[in-house]
């Protein structure tokens, strides 16, 4: 096939590598989330469903993980998603499995948006994009061309650009990475230089992971793998029916395929643009207003969360104590991990959510009376600066343990 569009085709090997890497990341992500199951994702933890609904009170979001607040329910869902990821990892990549994996990941991530990073959004956008690529049994050529492949490549370009721009221009390493990520982002469209540029991008992402954000680097690296062509195979491009209908207008094509062919690239383009806008501090507000419409469909993407939601120069520890006895009910430190740091930084900005969290900790520990939350801030280089740790009362609430009688049972007459 000599049509110029055939240059946009994705190699089979790259596609398989891309899907397997995404599945492996999902598996690892779910496994890590399992550790914080009760604390982060259940009604016994820090963000009960009532708090989440308060947070979402101006958004139209439907999340089936809120059906129950019991940790076993979320645990079961996580295991199901892990099962789906395993299926994709071992080559069972049918469209339905990919749809379920995408939705499963999106629902679990949104169960606690306070711990989400930009890489979580990016992961689920790539999962969404992978739905529109062919499954393993459908593959007939060495490369594949569809609206999905075009959309995916556009999204990879925007993601690399957003990651590069988000680093800023201050540090020397940021400047080097900016070049090494921006050049592949634009150059990956040129067929003959794809392989070296992809390798350069992978090296740059290795550095990015080592110095900035390992998770985001891993997701981006999984996407860049799509450009690695297999060797020794005869080059034969296989086109999707929609693309075929453009190349050969006499070919019949259904209305659904036509609509789908237009909608998918538009969604991915929109989402990609919003992602780039959200990585620039000056355009972040504009981006979030565009994101609202995509959010209801779990197609919003932003990378800004990975870069600057929390202040890394200080170490923060939140302690929830019983005001009457002084008993420590919960300790949460930003040193415990990236997600905990994000959670702390974000919940401290929402006094009502913080108070509900304190109340929930009191309920879960069955400690009635006054419950207080203290925040201790310690500078990272405490020895050098000579600054003392600061301790502040950030919230308090009065817990009354009254199990309401369940009123739905019996005949209401």
């Amino acid at each position, binding site marked *: 096939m000599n049509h110029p569009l055939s240059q946009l085709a994705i190699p089979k090997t790259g596609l398989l590598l891309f899907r397997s890497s995404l599945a492996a990341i999902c598996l690892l992500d779910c496994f890590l989330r399992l550790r914080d199951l009760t604390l982060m994702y259940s*009604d016994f933890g820090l963000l009960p469903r009532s708090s989440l609904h308060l947070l979402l009170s101006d958004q*139209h979001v*439907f999340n089936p993980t809120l059906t129950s607040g019991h940790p076993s329910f979320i645990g079961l869902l996580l295991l199901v998603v892990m099962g789906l990821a395993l299926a994709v990892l071992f080559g069972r990549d049918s469209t339905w499995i990919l749809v379920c994996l995408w939705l499963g990941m999106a629902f679990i991530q949104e169960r606690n948006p306070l711990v989400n990073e930009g890489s979580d959004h990016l992961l689920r956008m790539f999962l969404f994009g992978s739905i529109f690529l062919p499954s393993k049994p459908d593959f007939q050529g060495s490369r594949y061309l569809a609206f999905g492949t075009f959309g995916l490549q556009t999204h990879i370009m925007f993601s690399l650009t957003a990651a590069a721009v988000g680093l800023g221009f201050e540090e020397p390493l940021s400047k080097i990475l900016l070049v090494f990520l921006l050049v592949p982002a634009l150059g990956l469209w040129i067929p003959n230089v794809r392989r070296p540029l992809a390798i350069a991008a992978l090296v740059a992402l290795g550095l990015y992971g080592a110095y900035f954000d390992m998770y985001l680097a891993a997701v981006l690296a999984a996407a860049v793998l799509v450009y690695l062509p297999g060797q020794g195979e005869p080059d034969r491009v296989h086109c999707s029916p929609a693309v075929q209908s453009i190349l050969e207008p006499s070919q019949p094509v259904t209305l659904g395929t036509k609509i789908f062919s237009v909608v998918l690239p538009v969604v991915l383009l929109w989402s990609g643009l919003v992602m780039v806008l959200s990585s620039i501090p000056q355009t972040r507000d504009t981006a979030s207003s565009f994101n609202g419409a995509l959010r209801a469909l779990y197609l919003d993407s932003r990378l800004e969360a990975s870069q600057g939601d929390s202040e890394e120069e200080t170490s923060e520890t939140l302690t929830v104590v019983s005001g009457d006895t002084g008993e420590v009910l919960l300790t949460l430190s930003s040193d415990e991990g990236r997600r905990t740091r994000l959670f702390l930084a974000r919940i401290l900005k929402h006094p009502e959510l913080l108070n509900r969290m304190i109340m929930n900790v009191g309920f879960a520990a069955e400690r009635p009376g006054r419950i207080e939350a203290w925040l201790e801030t310690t500078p990272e280089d405490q020895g050098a600066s000579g600054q003392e740790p600061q301790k502040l009362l950030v919230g308090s609430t009065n817990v009354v343990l*009254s199990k309401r009688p369940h*009123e739905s049972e*019996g*005949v209401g007459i």
Partner: protein
Amino acid sequence: MWKEWLGLDLRSLGLLRICYGFLILADLFHRSFTFRAHYTRDGVMPLSDFLVQQDLAWRLWSVFYASDSPVFVAALLLFMGLLALMLLVGHRTTLVTIALFILLSSLQMRLPYLVHGGDNYLRVILFWCCFLPWGKRFSIDSLRSSQEPPKDHQAPFSIGGVGYICQIGILYGFGALYKVGPFWTVEHSAVYYALHIEHLTLGFGQWLVGFEPLFRFAASATWIFEASVPLLLLLPFPWVRMLTIFGIATFHLGLALTLDLQLFPWVGILTPLGLLPALFWRASKTKKLDRALTEAPKRLERFLGVKAGLPFRMSERYQWAGVWFRELLALVALVAVLFLTVVEWKTGAPPNYPFLDLRTARLHQKWSLYAPNVNLRSLKHEVKGQTVNGHTVVFDELGERDWSRWHYFREHSHKNPDSIQFQVYLNYVVNRWNLSNPEDPIAFAVYRLEFRDTQSEFRLGSPTSTVKATYFR
């Protein structure tokens, strides 16, 4: 022998399915008028307030907890309507029944203060119907089925079928067992007092209030009838079963004519239809009904001009596993329901066994209809407010009796002295007023409740009025 005793006719089950399809559609239609006020964030209890209650939040589940956005709630209700239509025409019946049970349970759990006995009865019967072959006749599934229906139209024996019969028996049997108060056993004044619950009594019921001797007979007859229904249903004589079903229908028709119990009498009338014996279908008129209902799915397909796909069937290799799983599940559910209902009746409190939690399975039930005594709560609700410009506002939704589910909301509030619902309701109506009249918002509002307690010997207590909630700007 078991066929007369525990047998179920496929045609009767088909008829039951059609009636349940209509019932669920009617229920959804009724709820749709107030869906925004009851189930969304713009209503009386947004999920951010509702789920903060400790007991509810941690133990129970509902698909409607996934979102309280009006868009998604409306979409879910429409989806339920579509499923009810599919149940009505018998398309993919088993799958649809399971989905409807889950969604109906979810809808009821979204705001349990609106739930009444009819909802509970509908839900638990729908659970047992998940195990019944009620899509084998009068359905689109039957057109696609490769199996011929049995000549005697009998459904194969199943524990689910036993559960369905037992469930009807449980309603009436425990209804009688709970009626041990003096109003039922000594004075026989229970029906008299029941007809004095002013916000529930209909015109015919108010007219009947003048016939005092009738009430003594009615109270005794109700108790004897309820106590005998479980025994009568299990007798192996088709005539007795038919007469019992007729008796149940008459009893519930009486309730429907005298009291506004919403869905309850209609669920009560229609539910035993699945028990109609083969004898019923031998009469010439019912044969016509049989023919008409058998023809209906074919006509529907011709009218729509489409052919439905094959119903879901498990591969033959694994069918035995499916049957065993289904029967085992039904057996566990039946034993649990019988055991825990007896325990609750004996001890007077809901049993608390962590591994046998009927509330989570949405099968918990307590059929204490007007028992042990009739709590006479002739409630008059008055919610009045004054605007900043000095106008008095009487909020319109609080008439003595309305056809929406609001009065169950208020009934539940009254049962629980610590109820938050009065305040929640007051805040809701005031906020609604303030949103539509920003230039003249409410400055002060009060929720006043007037009720009468039960006396004895056909006497009524004097009205008492209390302030239940207040609002200040």
